[in-house]
Each structure stands twice: as C-alpha cells, then as structure tokens.
C-alpha cells in the first residue's frame, strides 16, 4: 500500500543535511552506481538508490508509489560510458 506523500512547504535543516549526505554518498560511489544504472535516472534517499528509470516522468511515478516526494529527493542521470560533455 502506498504511503501518503510527504508534504513539503518549507525546508528544515535536517532535510538539507540529508540531501547533502546523499549527495556526498552518490559522489563517492558514482562510478559503481553508474555502472549498475547506466543511462538511467536514479533517485537516492538515505544513502540508497530507491528507484531508477530511463525517463524522469516514470521515475516520479515510481517515487510517488513509495510515498516519496521527487522534489526533495536527490535525482541524477547516470551518463553513458565514455561520455564527454561540453556545456
């Protein structure tokens, strides 16, 4: 059964701290996670990949089913191998 989606009207310090911890964890484990989830969006919460999908729309649906708000979740795209990006 899906949990009730968390409400986000404002940020508290713990949320930002949690996001930063997840971000550090993803950076530290980036190559490993990228290899496992190549060319997919991944959602990270509490140092875990909790969902993956090739499209951001589908990932949002997967997160909502888990009761997780995509807006307050670290979402990143795992680039294809050997991609050189000129921005």
């Amino acid at each position, binding site marked *: 059964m899906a949990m009730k989606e968390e409400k986000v009207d404002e*940020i508290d310090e713990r949320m*930002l701290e949690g996001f930063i911890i997840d*971000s550090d964890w993803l950076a530290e484990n980036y190559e490993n996670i990228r290899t496992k989830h190549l060319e997919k969006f991944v959602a990270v919460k509490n140092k875990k990949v909790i969902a993956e999908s090739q499209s*951001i729309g589908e990932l*949002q649906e997967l997160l909502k089913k888990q009761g997780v708000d995509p807006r307050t979740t670290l979402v*990143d795209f795992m*680039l294809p191998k050997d991609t050189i990006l*000129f*921005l």
Partner: protein
Amino acid sequence: MVVKSYGGGPKPFARVFLIASKYRVLGFLHPFVDTGAPLTCLSSTDAERLHVPFNVLSAHTPRPTVHYIGGLSFWAYPMENVTLKTSDEDSKEEEFILNPIYALKLTKKDNESIQRARLIPSILGMDFLTKYRFTLNFNLDKKIANITKP
C-alpha cells in the same frame, strides 16, 4: 559543494534548496557550478521534477529567449525572485536570491533531443557568482571545491 566525475572529468556541483514562491515551485537541486555559463538555469528534467508551471511562465513570457546548451536548444523562461538555500562548511544555513533563474524547455520534442536532454544538468552560472562576489576554488588533484568571498 561536491566534486563528481561527470561528462569526462571532475566537476563541481552545489547542493541547494530552491524556492520560487510566485510559481509554487520548490525542491532540491544539484546544479553544476559553471564559470563558463553566464546565467543560472534549471534543466528541463529538473524543471519537470519540480513541477515548473510552464503554462504560467509562457503567459508572462510569450517569446522566451533560446539558450544553447550541450548542442541542444531550449526555450528559457525567466522565473523571478528565486531563493536558493544552502549550508556552508559549518552547516550554517545561507540564503541567496537570484532574479531571474531560467527554466529550460526543449524547443524540439523529438526522441533524440529528449534522450540527450537527460544529460544536461541544472547550472549555477556567473550571474550567481558575480552578484554575491564569490570565487570558485576548485582543486582538481584533491577533488575539492568551494566558493568563497574575497
């Protein structure tokens, strides 16, 4: 900030909470700090994730400018008075206001463009660094990055 291997080498990324009250948009962002980018923008995928109301933005800006990023073209819709919250190295919360930040939307909706747009991150550009007189310090050997005031 965090340094992550992205698109061919280590790059600095910020961690911010974005609030655009006027448009009821908020959420976490992981923008690439790009000293080669003049403007700050919300990638098309982050814009979708944060539920940016493009119908509202297009009513205010019927003729948005076009931004070219990573070989793709995007309509760039300005969002006014956007607050970015972050925390410094001592975990002290800091707040910055940018006016505007641009929300990106692909000009072409073909499958190839959609696939390629997934690679483009949100960008924290020189408008942010200049407004707050920040300097980006980026140590490639140690993979450490931070922004400081002079």
